[in-house]
């Protein structure tokens, strides 16, 4: 993460949440999670709500199909997410 603020400039509540996620998953938190949790009013809050609705909300596509669409597009964009 090139921006130190996004790497570790979170509120203590968000730092605690990030630590817990990393502890439970036993993996380093992905950068996108740090981004979502940093200044959530700027991006993360609306993004998370939209993502939840798109990938998990009512749809004619299954959850797995939607995850596949997202993965395919990410691959085309040379993005890990």
């Amino acid at each position, binding site marked *: 993460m090139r*921006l130190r603020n996004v790497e570790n400039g979170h509120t203590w509540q968000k730092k605690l949440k990030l630590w817990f996620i990393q502890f439970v998953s036993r993996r380093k938190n992905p950068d996108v999670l740090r981004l979502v949790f940093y*200044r959530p009013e700027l991006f993360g809050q609306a993004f998370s709500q939209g993502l939840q609705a798109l990938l998990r909300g009512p749809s004619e596509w299954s959850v797995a199909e939607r995850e596949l669409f997202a993965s395919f597009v990410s691959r085309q964009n040379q993005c890990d997410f």
Partner: protein
Amino acid sequence: MPDRYSTLRQSLIDGVLTTPGDTTPDLRRRVEARAAQHAGIERQESTEVPVELAGYLDKTALHAYKVMDEDIQALKDKGYSEDAILELTLSVALGSGMSRLERGLAALKGATS
């Protein structure tokens, strides 16, 4: 074009472009419009940005995978805070993403009309 995700889309747009920060909403709107223009969508807003930002913004819009640490440091050396860089980068991403959505929905509308 209203659809069941319109409210969610608008919340994201409002968040990225208008949340108080180290850059003005006006600059972020122009950055978003510039990124959308690169993707073939014209906005009503001006796409003019400070000359020292243009290179980074265009690279991020067109070839984000080519952005290097040196690009970020160059902006910091010119006085841009990390929060300003974040806000501008998100504005580019918003413009690029929304323009793709608009083109996709337009294609869908054309195919079904």
